């Protein structure tokens, strides 16, 4: 999958992962894909809840060595 923007929030606590992810999405074009990296488990659930109520699309999530990586398509 072609990733257009990567947002690295490793080591950051809430609310920063969402603050940064949202800011990045605001600057993207519809259909582009954002990859967000986070070490905060709570941010994952919050991001999922936020995306659900936004026009954006949740694509996937995976975890490796404590780093959550999720992909979101700008809607």
């Amino acid at each position, binding site marked *: 999958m072609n990733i257009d923007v*990567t947002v*690295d929030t490793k080591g950051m606590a*809430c*609310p920063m992962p969402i603050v940064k992810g949202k800011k990045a999405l605001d600057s993207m074009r519809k259909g582009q894909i954002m990859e967000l990296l986070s070490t905060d488990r*709570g941010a994952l659930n919050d991001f999922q*809840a*936020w995306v659900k109520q936004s026009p954006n699309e949740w694509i996937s999530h995976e975890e490796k060595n404590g780093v959550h990586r999720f992909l979101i398509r700008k809607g």
Partner: protein
Amino acid sequence: MNRFNQENQEDQEFRASRGTNAAIEGAKPAALPVGAGEIARAVIDRTPLFILDVRNAEAYADWRIEGDAVESVNVPYFDLLEDAEPALLRLPGEGPVIVVCAKEGSAQFVADRLVEAGRGDVRYLAGGMKAWSEHLEPVKIGDLKAGGELYQFVRLGKGCLSYMILSDGEAAVVDALRMTDAFERFAASRGARIKHTIDTHLHADHISGGRKLAEESGADYWLPAKDADEVVFEFTPLEEGRTIRVGHAEIAIRPVYSPGHTIGSTSLIVDDRYLLSGDILFVASIGRPDLAGKAGDWAGDLRTTLYERYESLSGELTVLPAHFGRLSELGEDGSVSARLGELFANNPGLNIGSEDDFRQAVTTNLPSQPNAYREIRRANMGRIVPNEAEQSEMEIGPNRCAIHDQSSTPEGEGK
């Protein structure tokens, strides 16, 4: 591909909005923190509290700060990043507001925004729901006949109860929670050395602090052998007939074998006056037999324990359980207790007529299991060794150890 720099502008803006910076620079007003202990006292004293919980809706529905005089609303912080207005609309026009999130950062962020927007009297919960879950409030239950005291430690955020029996410079801790420093500090403040830590059973809803506290204090760790088939550490078997002494020679802790919640569950009669019932009998309910996967096998044991063994004990004993399910079980001073005779009259779990009905009640339509209960059991056996963050994650949510505990998430939806 363009990569966002970690040290970009909004980081700086975020930091600049924080308390100390703001105070020094006189830039933006900032909200102040409030500790979990202050919230606990308010809940116990039924002081009105207004809480703005900014976690996601699912987390809020599953578990939140509750109390007779607590009013709370849920507006997730991610709906408030640019504008605090959606939260302001849900708040009372005046009076104190506490903003709460999982750990602290998001609540602090939102509280600052509210203060900036001109809403005074806003504080945020320091340490978030994690701190709330871990806070222990000691409440004195009574004096011991030959000299000494019995304290209950109320974990409001989780519904867990631990006990400390103090006499003549010695202490025993029963069903200790993993926040062992709270027990160590309390014993030290009373000039007592912890000599025994006792678990009434292998816990499935919280990580036991019994073994750790025993190691740190040089105490004996007592655990029922029948619950310890799979444990990987040394312990002293908690058995009926083996009296445990604390301090003054006349202070006795007498184990009473009382299976049903687990096969090893053992109650303790302290000073011939108090019945520490573990997870067998609660104030408003009775224990569930299914958390080790053996509801059918243990239902009969549970009935025999409650309807024969406990029935034969003095109705004057004060029952002190290891959990409560609802805040309404707390007395005026925040303690959870009841006379055994009263419970035989009023507790629905002690008033089920036939054996069939009893079996039905304790094996069907049970609340969803406590969060991560299988892993918690394994951790309490010493078979897995989660770090502190993992332990805290495993314990999230209510305890749900009683058959009548409410399940706020529908069956099967629990994580």
